[in-house]
């Protein structure tokens, strides 16, 4: 179908605690701005993956309707964020010999070498979500950003590949398509968050973005301006709530309230011996719980999450290159003291992320939960830029989605 330069870009994130849709458009000056936001409480998602399809469908419909109303535009296609424990990332290298007589590298060579880099032996049930170019190498010379026009005999490229299980990736796509919406592309949530919160300077210096979601914690490492490592850990805010519910012997809903109202990632001296009481539905005092226990349970779980991430990134040896430090986004970053805890575990400066270079609804942008959805809109805008630069017919070759769905 023809879709000549759509005026709005929509990012849809189907998360474990909420489904949210963010609508963005290019202002006349070419700056991306957010014009609409819709969200709904998510009931059918656990640990980032869909467990109840009908509930998810309804929640997406609510969120899209709200966003359409606020943006005053019709939403036809979205950029969908995907996540889950099955998503992995690794680095690969592709090689290509230059065949032209004068040994000059042209665009076709670049496309060929990227194609070679994509030819990886993945397990049959896995599908590639992203192939991100890192650096080129010309005859062994490293860190080439753009080899077109250079001379050489061998061209190699390092790429970072993000892949996941095909069936699990299809579930959210099917849910969206059942609402008569097109899926322009799928994006790994962690990557979207990092697009939203990192400036070019941070990417150059080297930084780690940790998205502390309710179901899944995603992390992305940037180094020298390129992605070096990605990953997803299926432990999130829901696990903290579950721990509290079991440890303090309260219900899940009550545990969630207590976590938000009194929780913190560290146990400090002022909390010792204090009791917190909460009321039941008739507003009469029901029980009191020990504040120190609450914080200790949360602290231990957050320590474990950071510990696992630190260990994995430590194994890749990238921890020493993160000069800009660590950025926390997502709902979990609202926890008081979480930045200090992360500093203690990683030994690097930690700061709470804020969205960069996107204007619009200021209240939205300030909240860490929407970093992913805003990042999806940014990703969409890059795709459109690329399309426009190619000077194409305006055909949106939904190659990835086509491949995915043709696998049935």
């Amino acid at each position: 179908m023809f879709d000549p330069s759509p005026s709005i870009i929509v990012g849809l994130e189907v998360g474990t605690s909420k489904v949210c849709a963010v609508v963005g458009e290019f202002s006349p000056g070419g700056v991306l701005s957010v014009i609409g936001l819709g969200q709904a409480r998510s009931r059918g998602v656990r640990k980032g993956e869909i467990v109840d399809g009908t509930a998810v469908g309804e929640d997406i419909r609510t969120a899209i309707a709200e966003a359409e109303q606020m943006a005053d535009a019709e939403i036809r296609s979205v950029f969908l964020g995907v996540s889950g424990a099955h998503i992995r990332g690794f680095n690969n290298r592709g090689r290509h010999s230059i065949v032209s007589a004068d040994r000059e590298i042209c665009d076709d060579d670049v496309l060929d070498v990227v194609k070679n880099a994509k030819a990886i032996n993945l397990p049959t049930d896995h599908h590639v979500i992203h192939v991100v170019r890192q650096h080129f190498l010309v005859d062994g010379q490293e860190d080439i950003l753009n080899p077109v026009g250079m001379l050489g005999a061998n061209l190699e490229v390092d790429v970072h590949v993000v892949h996941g299980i095909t069936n699990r990736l299809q579930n959210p796509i099917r849910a969206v398509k059942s609402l008569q919406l097109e899926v322009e592309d799928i994006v790994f949530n962690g990557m979207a968050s990092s697009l939203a919160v990192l400036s070019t300077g941070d990417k150059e210096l080297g930084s780690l973005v940790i998205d502390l979601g309710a179901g899944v914690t995603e992390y992305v490492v940037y180094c020298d301006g390129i992605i070096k490592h990605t990953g997803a850990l299926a432990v999130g805010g829901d696990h903290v709530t579950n721990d509290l519910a079991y440890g303090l012997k309260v219900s899940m809903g009550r545990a969630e309230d207590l976590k938000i109202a009194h929780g913190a990632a560290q146990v400090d001296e002022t909390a010792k011996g204090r009791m917190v009481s909460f009321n039941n539905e008739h507003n009469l005092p029901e029980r009191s719980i020990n504040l120190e226990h609450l914080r200790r349970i949360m602290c231990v779980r957050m320590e474990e999450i950071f510990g696992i991430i630190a260990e994995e990134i430590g194994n890749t040896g990238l921890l020493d290159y993160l000069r800009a430090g660590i950025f926390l986004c997502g709902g979990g970053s609202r926890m008081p003291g979480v930045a200090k805890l992360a500093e203690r575990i990683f030994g690097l400066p930690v700061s709470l992320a804020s969205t960069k270079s996107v204007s619009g609804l200021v209240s939205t942008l300030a909240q860490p939960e929407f970093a992913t959805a805003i990042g999806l809109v940014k990703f969409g805008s890059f795709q459109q830029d690329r399309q426009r630069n190619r000077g194409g017919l305006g055909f949106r070759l939904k190659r990835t989605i086509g491949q995915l769905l043709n696998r049935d």
Partner: protein
Amino acid sequence: MSTEPNASIEAAQPKKAPAIRVVGVGGAGLNAVGHMMRAGLSGLSFAGAHSDARLLAQSTLPDQVLLGARLTRGLGAGGDPDIGRAAAEEDAERLRQLCGGCDLLVVVAGLGGGTGSGAGPVIAQLARESGALVLALVALPFDFESQRRQQQAQLALRHFKTASDAVICLPNQKVAQLMDENTALTDAFRITNDMLVQGVRGILHLVTREGLINVDFADLCRVVRGRQAESYFATAEARGESRARELLERLVSHPLLENGRLLSEADAVLVSLTGGPSLTLKEIRQVMEQINRACEGAQVVMGAAVDPALGDALTITLVATKRNPPEETREEAGSTSRMEFDNPASEYNAAKAESSHGSDRSSGERPASRFVPPAPDLSRERVEELLLKQGGGSPRQRKKAARMRQGILPLEVVPKGRFAKIEPTVHRGEDLDTPTYIRRCVALN
């Protein structure tokens, strides 16, 4: 090797054989050493030490020491290395008597529990103080054993490295890879014990037997000695026509050497080849060429011997040592327990109680990247004072502290609440859906 006609009397006298003693510490250690005794290793004296009186009585070892009789009343360390350590310190005098008078002491222990991890390093330290060369032969827990045991094992391994001259590790998980998964558990432990026996036998032969190309005690000392050095050993046997080639294949694919990786990373290698009377120069050359190629840059010490009892079999025992560079030890020292490494007769300082809890991470592989100032110089009295304080003071204080540190027994199945019917998140054999504070045994009182 021809002696001159006017040779002095010393040259004609045979070498005095070094006195070797093998001590099993803890349940796994007692088991293994009992196995060795039954396997008929000769030329060694055996001993055992444990805090569990019943297990000690069951074992058939000649020399036995019950550790911490007053502290634990003979009931064992309960999987807590701090209790194991305190128990060993209580009976330090008897342990000193046990280790005295021998040239080489082999401490055999299984790490992860209480006595082996806690008392083992103390015994090694005491033996070293009385002048013996101490070789620790330790087994590391399986991957499916809990995270807490793994952490305790790693910590104990570090203590062993400081307290003894050489540490040879036998990771149980690697041995498990050698066997079929459906092996019975008793068979599995028997096989790990067999490996330990082979290790000790190999070292014994290296040290006592006269070979055609001789390797002796001093060579072993030179290869395995070194602060913070880690050693791995492997044995292999082959027979028949192309036994040299088969032997090499077996060695290179040996799980204990991680398919040859440890060999290429080794700094020093001790090789002992033993064959029947038909051992030829060509076979020795083939084997040694490959080994030299596999471990380039390492110091290789080779010995060869002929044992008529072997017939047409060719066996090889190999000990590979990796010495960690001093910067890494300094970083480890700064981040985990206080260890003095400048002082050659360094005290093995007991680790703080906190470090045996969840916050410890084994960061051995990370390259040194930050400066950590060296540990302060302490006088002997101060050191003893600190040791006493860390040991917990009087036995009564220690008992109270030990009792409070016991974690929550997971007697009930932990309901997973929200995650009950969903695929669990498994990381390193642990189910991350169960609350962390329960898995880490954080007491809420």
